[in-house]
């Protein structure tokens, strides 16, 4: 069943607004409860990909009593095909900082961190300047809030929130068991709100223009706009802000090169959608009533008919094998065996039916892996193998 939504462009995140001082001043004149309600009624969900309601996150942490709480901005953008957070921090960093300070005000925290991935080290000098200016203004309006940058060192897994805390605590970036969740037990064991860069940028928009403006965009369960990182076989790669809920068909019509064979939605840990399913696929969070709805951290990679899906899967698996933290067996061994397995099938050393065995392995990983990395390998693996089985074999 095709959706009827057209591609709707928007321009909030990158709109250059030099009024963050006023926005921040007006934020701290409102009560924390009012701000939480504003966020909750906007139905903003985490833009890193997982989609947890942001207002709820802030609310849970605000209700806890602790001697110290933390606000963390997750800028460990490592998902293949995602590059929006870098652009946000480059072009509108003050929006992110304002939203972090607002969060600090709401939950009662005076310490914020930006966990910046090692690959983005080149952003650091400029960002430090902006933070200086920002902290100076906070002092002026008597808001006790400091922001520090914590540099990562090249580990995809540190984008997982609990692995990120471990990394900040000076340890190997190995995810923790959940629960407890960061809201109650985060960085240094203290209640912590951790938000994606883009989520914070949207929070700025909501505080400035009100929840309704945001809520009116998008579709049911997937409100507002989202930045999409478009790459691959497209004549116009780049970052685009679009309303959620669009059909993949419309997306490809706009961004495809006329020969689009498949689109990878949500990066290597997301799903590959073949052409025949474009019309039935919408981009948004789960829970939409019609058709399939795929969530995404914003990565949209297009592949045209010249691409071998075997090579694509091989590349993903190589990525996962290297980036698996090695802590839990299903993910560590699973990623290795999947890679060995598809190569063996390709070379004819294993029968085609071996692919079904590998599919069952990904299913096991989905149930038993400790964190999202191991669990989501199944997404791309099964969607590629099931839709392009012949390319895996011949």
């Amino acid at each position, binding site marked *: 069943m095709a959706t009827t939504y057209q591609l709707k462009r928007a321009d909030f995140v990158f709109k250059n607004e030099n009024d963050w001082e006023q926005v921040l001043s007006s934020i701290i004149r409102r009560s924390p409860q009012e701000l939480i309600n504003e966020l909750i009624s906007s139905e903003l969900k985490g833009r890193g990909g997982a989609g947890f309601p942001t207002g709820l996150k802030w609310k849970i942490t605000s209700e806890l009593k602790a001697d110290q709480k933390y606000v963390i901005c997750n800028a460990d953008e490592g998902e293949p095909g*995602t590059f929006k957070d870098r652009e946000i921090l480059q072009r509108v960093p003050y929006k992110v900082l304002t939203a972090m300070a607002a969060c600090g005000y709401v939950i009662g925290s005076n310490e914020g961190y930006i966990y910046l991935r090692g690959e983005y080290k080149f952003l650091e000098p400029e960002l430090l300047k902006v933070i200086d200016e920002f902290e100076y203004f906070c002092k002026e309006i008597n808001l006790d809030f400091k922001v520090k940058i914590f540099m990562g060192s*090249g*580990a995809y897994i540190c984008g997982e929130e609990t692995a990120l805390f471990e990394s*900040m605590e000076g340890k190997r970036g190995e995810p923790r068991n959940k629960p407890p969740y960061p809201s109650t037990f985060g960085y240094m064991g203290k209640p912590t709100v951790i938000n994606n860069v883009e989520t914070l940028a949207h929070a700025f928009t909501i505080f400035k223009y009100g929840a309704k403006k945001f809520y009116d965009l998008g579709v049911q369960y997937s409100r507002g706009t989202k930045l999409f990182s478009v790459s691959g076989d497209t004549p116009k*790669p780049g970052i685009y802000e679009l309303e959620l809920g669009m059909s993949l068909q419309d997306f490809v019509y706009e961004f495809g090169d006329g020969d689009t064979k498949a689109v990878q939605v949500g990066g290597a840990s997301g799903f590959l959608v073949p052409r025949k399913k474009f019309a039935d696929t919408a981009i948004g969070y789960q829970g939409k009533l019609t058709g399939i709805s795929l969530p995404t951290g914003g990565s949209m990679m297009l592949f045209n008919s010249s691409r071998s899906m075997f090579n694509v899967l091989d*590349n993903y698996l190589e990525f996962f094998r290297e980036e698996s933290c090695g802590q839990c067996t299903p993910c560590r061994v699973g990623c290795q065996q999947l890679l060995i397995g598809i190569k063996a099938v390709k070379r004819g050393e294993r029968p085609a039916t071996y692919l079904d065995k590998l599919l069952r392995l990904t299913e096991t990983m989905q149930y038993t892996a400790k964190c999202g990395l191991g669990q989501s390998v199944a997404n791309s693996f099964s969607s590629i193998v099931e839709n392009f089985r012949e390319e895996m074999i011949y």
Partner: protein
Amino acid sequence: MSPIQSLIKDLADQYGRKRESLLPILQGVVEQEKYLSEYSMVEIAREIDIPAAEVYGTATFYSFLEVKKMGRFIIRVCKTITCSMKGKSQVLFAIQDMLKIKIGETTADGRFSLLETNCLGLCHKAPAMLINNEVYTDLTPEKIREIISDYMTK
């Protein structure tokens, strides 16, 4: 006190001597030395008073914290899907041809090291690479020859 010892002491003065200070200290040493020698890892362990094995275990987890001797300029070519589709191999060939080294090797003069890395977040300008912290995008073999020649004189 050896130069590395005093570097580590300075870093510890700046970031503290707690476990949370470990990553910034490791990064500080790598920034200067380009890698972590066994000696510097032992010294870091001594300075912040944790087992050396913990320092080693943490350092080896992160791909940007090298524990092998590296050249002054570390070239990291992105090998993830979009870059690999958009001509990463030709870029690599061009670099290898110029520097006469393979992936994972360092030139004899200790100037360049060549590595592959996972997604740099520059897929819309693929293929991309880093030289130390500097970003280079939309690479072609011609562009590579220009960039590398430039670095050869540095």
